[in-house]
Every structure is written in structure tokens, then in C-alpha cells.
């Protein structure tokens, strides 16, 4: 392959790599079209066919602009803008032949494109891809400048250039002033809500999540994590039943006061964005994160929907008491009619005290052969709760929670449905808890006078294993589960947990290093604000230190390690002369040097000649016996 072909191919490859993350986000046909154009360019550079004519490139440009506009209804914004940019860069590649201005423009555009890949994802994998691509583009640029260079050597050079930039990059990452919010908002164009819904709860909804092994949030506890049976992560609460679905609160009121009955537990949650306002907290939250509020139903709400990964700290008490709740009446609501058999069952317990009624209902679920399954039969009748409690008796947690809450209300005990997550997986490698979408759960809260709202988990009555050991051990053997949710410790799973530690550290320390954390960090260095002399000292001092280090490595005098004693004596002689300003060049032969030194220091000419002759005779004439004489002469030589 000729060097021109190879270099053109390299540039095409680097551009393809830079565009890959963007193409993956484009409609399939646009992706295929651009990929085909890139492939055409690659073939063209291999076969050295003539460049595409100018009119064709212009026509293609117009067609692509129209197509992009058709696809995105816009030529700006993340997806529309990137589609346009990707199209134009691909076409520009056809103009980049050899070391021309066009080629340089393509190199710069490729660097830009690869940087914008972070608009799609900021994961460690994307970081790795971008670094790889940076090396590829640098290599293509190096080949443009020096087409004769050996590719392997230049790859090493490109890699080394990247590594040399790392210290400066880290320094600026840590010290360069950050804005409190993102400079421009990263648009979330899909706007897909993930995880639990706060709109409604109906049968089949949570079980859809049961197969989703993506991470919902991660938790670090300040102390030992509590046992998994109390890890109820409180999310949306539902207290209105319309006969089939449970709906969110219709009215708002002042939250009741929670009286903690035990020690409080501090922990930090890193929540993946779910585009909704509610935050998760362990039952019951006592200390809220900044700028969050608690609702009447004891839900923690953030001020704005969670669009970016967010880390917050709160504290909870695992035992509590609530004395009064102004919204209690709402927790008794029932539709006027429907589910007569359930109502009849509840009517049997009317005489009992409230606590006994709860216990009776739990006993009913435990003793009547209820099955906890991911694939319950569909409830078709209008009396869905009757159907579940008396006919099918198979369900997932939302069936149990919904039916139990209905049963309680029918028996006269105030009750409501709470959804959220239960349990989680403790990652011992990273000492944090991973809670996945599959850990989504629903349970019931009942109001008991004197105690207030207390949690009853009807699922635990039917399938205790769900709470004790998680989903994998509690569903029937036949149901299929994704790898990550299986209970057995296969190596894939262990590897995945290790990788999750990496992802979590990345999120915490790189993505999560925002203006607030920067401020905290700088305060630890004693820097109050960015206009202080101390800050400038750190910044400029750091830059000077790094550049100075490089300068030292490059400019440091290379002293050869000499095994030959004669050479060492001679070097001593040269150092003595260097002090008098006559410095021997590394490539300068001893005779040439002696001539120069004698001219500079004529009064020493005799000595210089004698020493040089002695040295030459030993080192090049093989007369080793004269070594001692050389040593003595050099020692006596005092210019």
C-alpha cells in the first residue's frame, strides 16, 4: 500500500470512529447512508479513483441537509445538529486529498466531533472510546505532516502526546473554575421516563420492571448497612382507588410530624435520572437533602425533575411514630361499589381491634395458597381484587399491595399503597448498595392509632423469600430472568460488579465533580475564591511545575554511563574544562576537542595534548597499562 493511500485510509478511519457515537443515535437510514459514504471514501482512497466531481458533492450536501431536516425537524440541537455536522464532515472528507487545507480542517472537525460524543453519554466506556479516537486522529494528523513516518512509531508518538497531556488535563479539571450549572443544558430529547411511575399503579406495572437490570440508584451508608429486610426505599405513594387503578394523591396537605424512635442512619444516594420529581428515601426520612421537600404522604420531592444524575445525602430512622395526620380521611376512600366478596371478607373482621384486623388479613394471605410469580394470569373481570383474592391467587407485589390495601380500607383501617424499591445488592468490592429497576416493589401502609403509619408488606406474607433474599430466590424456577438478576455467583456477575465499582467511582469523582464539590475541595486547600492570589498560585504553580518537569526531562544533560575507567577519567577532564567554559560536544572527537580547548586556553595546551594522547592510546589504541598515568594527569590538571 502506498503511503498516500494509507494516510487517506487512516483519516477516513479516524473520522468514522469520531462519528460512530453520533451515528448510533441517528435514524437507521441516515446511519446507513453516512456509513456507505465513509466506506465509499475508504474504497476510493484504496483504489485511487478520481475525486467526486464538485457538483455531485454540492448536490449530496443539499440532499443530506434536507434529509436531516426531515428526520429531526431541526438543524440544531443535539440530534439535528450532530446529524448535520456528521453529514458535512463525511462530505468534507471527499475534498481532503493529501496535505491540504481541507485535510487539516477535517482533522480539526474530527477532534470536535469526538468531543461532542459526551453529549450522548459520559460513561467510562465513552471516555475510553474518545481517548482511542483522539490517538487515531492525532496519528492521522501526524501522517499528514510526515507521510514517510513509520506508522507504528507515529502511533507510539500519538499515544505519548496524549499521555503527556494527562497531568495538565487533570490539573485544569480540578482547578479550572466550574459554573454552578451546566453551561448549556444537555437536551434529553427522548424524555423517556424510566423506572417507577408516579401517575398510577395497576396490576402488571411493577412486574414489567422486574426484568430490567439497569441501575436505579446507588447508596453509600456512613455506617454498616442495615439488613435487607428493612431496606424499603420509599417512592410514589397512591391513596385513591378508582376500582381498578391506584392513583396519586388528589389533595395536598401539611406533612405530619415524624417522631423517630431509634438512631438515625445517614446515607448518600446517587440517583440515575428518571425525569420525575420524587426522590427515594429509606422509611422514614428525618433529615432531607438541600432544596428537597417532604409531601403530606411523606414522599421526598426535589424542586425540579431529575434530569441529570444526582447525588444527595439524607438520614432516616428505621422505627418511628406519627401522632396525627390531617389527611387520614383520604386513606379510607373506596369506590361506592365493586369487589363484593372482598368486602364481605373484611366485614367478618369488623368486630376486632384494628391491629387484629391487620393480622387477620396477613394470615389470610399466608394460608390460602397465594403464589408470587412474575407471570400472573390476567385479571379480566370488573371485580379485579375479588378475582385475585379468591380465584387466581397468583400475583406480583402490586397485586398483593393493592388487594391488601383494599381489604384494610374495607375493614375500616386507613391504608395506602407505597411504591418504591426493596432491598438491593451490596457490592462488597465498592462498599455500596446497588438498587436496580428489578428491585421495584409495592407495599401497604396502615394507620394504627398511637403508632401512626406503619408498613405492612403483604408480599412478605405470601413469599417471605422476596424480602429476605431478593427476587431471584422467590419466583418459581421456570420463570426466566436476566443474568444480572440471578442469584448464583457466576464469574460474569462478579466481573459485572467490579465494573459497576468503576462506573460508580467515575460517576462520583469525574461526572459528579461539580461546582459545589470543587468549592469544597478548594476550601480544603485553603482557597476561598477564584480571585485570590492563593488560587492563582496553585493554578500557575501547578502548570509551571508540570511544564518544568517536562522541560527538565527533555533538556536534562544526558550523562553516559561509562564502564571504561579511562572514559571516566576523560569525562572528569572534560568537566574540569567545562568549568572554564570549554564544553565538549557529545559528537566531538577527542582530538578536535583538544584543538579547540588549546585554542581557548593556550597556556594549558601542553597538558591538554598530553592527557588527550594518553586517553586515545588507552581507549582506541588498547594500551591499558597507561590508565594510571591518565588518572594522575587528570587529577593534577587544574585549569
Amino acid at each position: 500500500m502506498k503511503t498516500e493511500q494509507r494516510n487517506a485510509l487512516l483519516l477516513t478511519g479516524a473520522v468514522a470512529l469520531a462519528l460512530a457515537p453520533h451515528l448510533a443515535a441517528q435514524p437507521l437510514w441516515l446511519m446507513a447512508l453516512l456509513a456507505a459514504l465513509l466506506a465509499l471514501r475508504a474504497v476510493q482512497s484504496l483504489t485511487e479513483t478520481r475525486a467526486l466531481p464538485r457538483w455531485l458533492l454540492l448536490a449530496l450536501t443539499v440532499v443530506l441537509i434536507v434529509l436531516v431536516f426531515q428526520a429531526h425537524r431541526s438543524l440544531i440541537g443535539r440530534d439535528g445538529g450532530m446529524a448535520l455536522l456528521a453529514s458535512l464532515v463525511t462530505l468534507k472528507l471527499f475534498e481532503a486529498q493529501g496535505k491540504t487545507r481541507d485535510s487539516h480542517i477535517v482533522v480539526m472537525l474530527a477532534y470536535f466531533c469526538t468531543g461532542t460524543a459526551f453529549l450522548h453519554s459520559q460513561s467510562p466506556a465513552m471516555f475510553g472510546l474518545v481517548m482511542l479516537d483522539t490517538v487515531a486522529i492525532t496519528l492521522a494528523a501526524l501522517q499528514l505532516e510526515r507521510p514517510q513516518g513509520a506508522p507504528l512509531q507515529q502511533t507510539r508518538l500519538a499515544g505519548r502526546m496524549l499521555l503527556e497531556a494527562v497531568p495538565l488535563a487533570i490539573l485544569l479539571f480540578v482547578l479550572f473554575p466550574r459554573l454552578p450549572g451546566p453551561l448549556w443544558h444537555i437536551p434529553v430529547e427522548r424524555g423517556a421516563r424510566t423506572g417507577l411511575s408516579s401517575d398510577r399503579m395497576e396490576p402488571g406495572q411493577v412486574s414489567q420492571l422486574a426484568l430490567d437490570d439497569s441501575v436505579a440508584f446507588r447508596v453509600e451508608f456512613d455506617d454498616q448497612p442495615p439488613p435487607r429486610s428493612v431496606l424499603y426505599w420509599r417512592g410514589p405513594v397512591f391513596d385513591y382507588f378508582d376500582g381498578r387503578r391506584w392513583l396519586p394523591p388528589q389533595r395536598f396537605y401539611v406533612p405530619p410530624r415524624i417522631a423517630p424512635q431509634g438512631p438515625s442512619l445517614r446515607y448518600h444516594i446517587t440517583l440515575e435520572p428518571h425525569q420525575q420529581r420524587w426522590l427515594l428515601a429509606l422509611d422514614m426520612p428525618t433529615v432531607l437533602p438541600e432544596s428537597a421537600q417532604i409531601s403530606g404522604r411523606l414522599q421526598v420531592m426535589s424542586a425540579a425533575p431529575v434530569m441529570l444524575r444526582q447525588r444527595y445525602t439524607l438520614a432516616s430512622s428505621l422505627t418511628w411514630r406519627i401522632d396525627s395526620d390531617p389527611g387520614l380521611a383520604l386513606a379510607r376512600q373506596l369506590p361506592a361499589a365493586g369487589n363484593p366478596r372482598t368486602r364481605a371478607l373484611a366485614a367478618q373482621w369488623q368486630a376486632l381491634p384494628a391491629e387484629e384486623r391487620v393480622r387477620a388479613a396477613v394470615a389470610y394471605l399466608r394460608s390460602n395458597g397465594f403464589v408470587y410469580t412474575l407471570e400472573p394470569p390476567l385479571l379480566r373481570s370488573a371485580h379485579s381484587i375479588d378475582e385475585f383474592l379468591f380465584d387466581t391467587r397468583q400475583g406480583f407485589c402490586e397485586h398483593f399491595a393493592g388487594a391488601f390495601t383494599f381489604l384494610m380500607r374495607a375493614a375500616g383501617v386507613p391504608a395506602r399503597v407505597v411504591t418504591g424499591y426493596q432491598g438491593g445488592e451490596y457490592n462488597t468490592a465498592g462498599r455500596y448498595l446497588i438498587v436496580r429497576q428489578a428491585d421495584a416493589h409495592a407495599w401497604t401502609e396502615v394507620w394504627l392509632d398511637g403508632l401512626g403509619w406503619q408498613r405492612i408488606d403483604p408480599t412478605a406474607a405470601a413469599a417471605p423469600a422476596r424480602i429476605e433474599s431478593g427476587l431471584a430466590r422467590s419466583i418459581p424456577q421456570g420463570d426466566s430472568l436476566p443474568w444480572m438478576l440471578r442469584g448464583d455467583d457466576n464469574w460474569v456477575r462478579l466481573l459485572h460488579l467490579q465494573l459497576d465499582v468503576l462506573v460508580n467511582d467515575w460517576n462520583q469523582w469525574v461526572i459528579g465533580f461539580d461546582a459545589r464539590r470543587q468549592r469544597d475541595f478548594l476550601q480544603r486547600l485553603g482557597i476561598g475564591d477564584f480571585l485570590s492570589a492563593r488560587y492563582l498560585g496553585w493554578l500557575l504553580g501547578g502548570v509551571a511545575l508540570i511544564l518544568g518537569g517536562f522541560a527538565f526531562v527533555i533538556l536534562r544533560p544526558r550523562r553516559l554511563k561509562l564502564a571504561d575507567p579511562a572514559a571516566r577519567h576523560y569525562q572528569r577532564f572534560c568537566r574540569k574544562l567545562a568549568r572554564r567554559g570549554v564544553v565538549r560536544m557529545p559528537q566531538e572527537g577527542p582530538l578536535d576537542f583538544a584543538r579547540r580547548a588549546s585554542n581557548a586556553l593556550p597556556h594549558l595546551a601542553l597538558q591538554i595534548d598530553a592527557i588527550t594522547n594518553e586517553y586515545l592510546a588507552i581507549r582506541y589504541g588498547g594500551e591499558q597499562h597507561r590508565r594510571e598515568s591518565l588518572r594522575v594527569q587528570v587529577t593534577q590538571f587544574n585549569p
Partner: protein
Amino acid sequence: MNSALLPRFLEALQRLDSIILGKQDALRLALSCLLARGHLLIEDLPGVGKTTLAHALARVLGLKFQRVQFTSDLLPADITGVSIYDRQDGRFRFHPGPIFAQVLLADEINRATPKTQSALLEAMAEHQVTVDGESHPLPRPFYVIATQNPLQQIGAFPLPESQLDRFLMRLELGYPDERAERELLLGQDRRSLLSTQEPVLGIAELLAAQAEVEQVHISPALVDYVQALVAATRNDPSFACGLSPRAALGLIQASRAHAWLIGRNMVIPEDVQTIFPGVAGHRLVQRASGRPDHAAVLRLLAAIAIP
């Protein structure tokens, strides 16, 4: 060591200097090349004294001299000789060509076709000529001094690398300096001056001197330096290929001869530095242009530290 032969050679050098004015360094290198038993390539513009130098060398050293002007219609047999039927004897008799000399001046070697060039170069390597299946040994010593004009490449056949490698050294003469040129213009005609010269040396002395050159000491430290230079030519990506082991060997041989001519019984780095451009110049061609890059050779010499 001070050889008894050395004064004779210095006298020869002096004599050469009186013919070729102002070119002491080139003369010393040319003599080193012959003492190291190597063939010499002189590359320069017409009229700067290439042919005169070759002629003078042969003359002063007392060697049998033949000159062949290479042209595009020169055939191999024109150099090596032909077998002609002898009617009296009733068989073919070999008539040796001009190559059967001790010094063969191949003038403008790049004008001949590759076929003729390779016949000459084969003879240089094998030290014999084979005609009609019969081998005829060449006289000893046998030197080829070739000249070529670097500028006029139209209708010329540049020597390929493998054949350039057969020449131990390549020299450039360059214009004489002002004083030397003045002397030249005022002085006697070079050619008639040449014809009046008596040989200073004989073949026996030349062969003895060559044997003495073989004895000049090479230390491990010097081999380190030669190896560093050779390795640098191989690692430098701007050269098409580095120096061959044959070139390294030639570098050491020529350095020995150079040291001997100075009267030293050991080779020091300065000898190598003096010889290196002549030995490496025609062997190191630029990867980009395919032409020799003399500036790069000097740069390389300046970049490699003496170990």
C-alpha cells in the same frame, strides 16, 4: 609506529597536490580508498578535474592505467575483451579489453546501459572476467575509478543501490578556491604536466602499505561508535534503508587507511568522522525523493554522540 613507507606516500600526496590544486582533503580520501582496497566513485560537474585526479592517482602510484568513456552504445565486450578466431592457430584467441588494467577509469559510468554497467561491476566484485566460458583473472591491484555527472540525468542510467554499494567511497571535488584556481589558470597545462610525472611509488610498495593498513588497531570503543552510526542510519525513517554490514566494514577499512596516512597506529573517532560522508553519502538515499541526501548524513554525524 612510523612506517618506512609512510614518507613515500606523503610524497605521493604532495605530488598529487601539485597537480590537483587545493584539494588536499579529497586527495587524502582518494588515497585512503585505494589503500583500503576499495573502488572509488567521483561525482561532480564536468571540468572540475575528475579525470585528471584519476589519471594522476594512477600515474603517481605507478599503476597501469586505462580509460573507457562510457556511452549508451558501449557493449560489455568493449570493456572485457573478445575472443577472435585466429586463422594461423585454428582456434579462438582472447583479446583482453581495457578492463585488464590496474586502474580503470570508467568515465561517465551512468551513460552506459545497465547491461554494460553490470558487466563492469561484476568484474569489480569477482576480480575476474569470464568470456566464452573461460575465466581470465584481472591484474592485482585492480581499481575502478568511476566518474559521473549528477546533473545531466536525461538519457542516463543511474546506478542502482546494489551497484553503488560496490564503490567503497564516493567523492565530490567541487570548485577550487580562489587562490588555487588562480594558480591553476596561471600554471602549466595539467595534461602535459601529468605526462611528465614520474611514478613515486610502485606496486610492491602499495601492496606492502595495504598490509600495514590491515594492522592498524581497532578498539571496542571505536566499534561501538561505528555501530552507533550504522544503527542511526537504520533507525532514521527519512532514509530508504540503512547502511549494510559491507558498508560498515568498508567504513572501518577506510578509517584504518586514513589513520595510517596520518601516521597513527589506531583509529580514533575523528578518522571515522572524516571518512563517514564518503562511505555513507551514496548509500543513504532519501525515502521521499530516492536521491542521496548529503545534508542528512552530516546532520546524522552531528547527532550521534561518541560513546
